[in-house]
């Protein structure tokens, strides 16, 4: 299990990360979301033992990532957002090189190399030079590299950045397989809808501060309370019905915004919870407005993210 406690990092006087505390249970795919400069990469570099925090600590399975760097490196696999590859090395040699850096024995190196090349679907490129691979293939090879020592925690910083949709879908498939294998994965991405589909839980950072941490459902539930109402009117009633609905809604004190999304679809923002929502519906029905559909607008992760970071 990954545990982060009051982790802070300052670059000079600039606080990049402010007392981040977080827990990720075993076998979870945890999304790390935030706008540029939110502190995602800083957190990931600290967890990968590449950087010392200004204060705070982090543990993987009880091993302190800050103080027990050498031991921690066996438990953590890291794939940075930008990375290069060595020229004049084949894919097999590339993995073999990193396996030797992790002091893995010859037999195990060979076995892991074959398994991982198969996992990332590069077994056919085994003897091809790494610098000749496409970007997507390099990303997959780097993912295989980060798994070469069979780490418990996998840290992936924007693993799908710069990939075409097909390569992204392949990467998604590999991540699902990793979850099935029981790996704990910490993944950051700007492709938020993809994270919402894949992740069990999420952390949203903004300006180095934790804005939200919890399951995707919790986040959606929390945000759906503030989601706008979509009110669809019967088309057979004509334009007068829409005017009547707008007039009626404007009279209600808790309605803050009315938008006409489509000719017969109104999107309404209101100040309040379910009681206010019920009152609005009751009012419309009482005034004989021909409402045929009335529901909270679905919030995908992207919308939620925008809302949350805007508030912060």
């Amino acid at each position: 299990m990954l545990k982060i406690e009051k982790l802070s990092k300052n670059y000079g006087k600039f606080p990049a990360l402010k007392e981040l505390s977080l827990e990720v249970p075993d076998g979870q795919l945890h999304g790390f979301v935030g706008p540029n400069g939110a502190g995602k990469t800083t957190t990931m570099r600290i967890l990968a033992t590449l950087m010392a925090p200004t204060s705070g600590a982090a543990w993987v399975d009880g091993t302190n990532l800050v103080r027990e760097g050498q031991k921690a490196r066996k438990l953590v696999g890291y794939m940075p957002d930008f990375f290069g590859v060595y020229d004049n090395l084949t894919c097999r040699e590339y993995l073999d090189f990193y396996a030797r850096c992790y002091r893995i024995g010859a037999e195990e190196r060979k076995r892991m190399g074959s398994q991982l090349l198969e996992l990332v679907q590069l077994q056919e490129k085994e003897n091809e030079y790494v610098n000749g691979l496409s970007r997507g293939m390099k990303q997959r090879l780097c993912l295989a590299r980060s798994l070469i020592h069979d780490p418990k925690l996998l840290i992936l910083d924007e693993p799908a950045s710069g990939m075409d949709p097909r390569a992204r879908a392949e990467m998604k498939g590999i991540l699902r397989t990793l979850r099935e294998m029981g790996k704990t994965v910490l993944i950051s991405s700007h492709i938020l809808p993809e994270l919402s589909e894949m992740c069990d839980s999420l952390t949203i950072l903004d300006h180095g501060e934790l804005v939200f941490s919890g399951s995707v459902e919790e986040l959606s539930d929390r945000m759906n309370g503030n989601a706008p109402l979509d009110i669809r009117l019967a088309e057979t009633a004509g334009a007068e019905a829409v005017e009547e609905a707008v007039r009626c809604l404007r009279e209600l004190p808790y309605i803050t915004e009315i938008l006409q999304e489509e000719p017969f679809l109104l999107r309404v923002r209101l100040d309040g919870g379910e009681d206010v929502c019920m009152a609005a519906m009751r009012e419309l029905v009482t005034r004989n407005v021909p409402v045929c559909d009335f529901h909270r607008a679905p919030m995908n992760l992207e919308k939620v993210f925008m809302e949350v970071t805007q508030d912060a």
Partner: protein
Amino acid sequence: MLNPILSFSAIRRMRTFRTMLIVIAYEAALLVLAMAITGGFLKDELYLNMMERGPLCYAVMLGAQFVMLFLIAPAMTSGAVAGERERQTLDLLLVTNTGSFRIITGKILESFALLALLIICAVPVECLCLMTGGVTILQILTGTLFLLAVALACSAVGVFCSSMCRSTVASGVMSYIVLLGIGVVTALPFVFGYPRRITDVVYDAELYAELTPAGARAMIPALLYLNPGFGLLSLIQGQLHVLTGYMTGHGWGRIYCTWLMMDRADCGMIAVICAGGLVLVSAALAGGAALLIRRRTQTVKS
């Protein structure tokens, strides 16, 4: 287990055409030099004074290799760590279980391996001197060992500078400056603070006759032992005794006095001390570079 940085970097380097070109150019330059000096012998023209050409050829080739090492080493080592930074592969190395010191020693040894390849490939060329006589194979091998010590020190300086700089170009320039600086700074005792005792002893025949090799070594300023050029001259003088003859009677002052002092101190031993000093400096630089690569990574703002 062999250092993976060393073995894989060597594989990658040896797969490039550039490495082969460097080896060919280096050996060709030495061959041309050797042919130019011993050319008359190869034309079946044999004179008595040609016997002197063997030692001269050897000394010139040793000197030429010494200079070439100083020119080639920074170019070879400048990308050792800075190149990893530019290629964005350093982080991938630092998250492995290979410690910083092992990474640095791998880098130094890999650069050293190429320089060692150049030096060892030059041994057959140096053996051309054997044809004219005046030089033994043992002397050539000793000279090779000294050059290997110099190559190790040059590699260590190059890798140290590479771990300090963010770019390969800056690292290369810095390496040249540092190597030049080491040469100048360690030669300073010749110019400033030259021990007058040396002159006093050399010009006093009685004192000079009583001077033991250890006593003579103690009189030579310690900093001078870290000057690779001083080591090379000691080696050539110790092996061939050709250089004193050039100076006698030319009024070379303190250089001549130092020369005589070196003769008394056993030039071979001075060369050994100098080579040992260079190896120690290399180890110290490796330690410094190992500290630097992690510290430099810490300051990267994401």
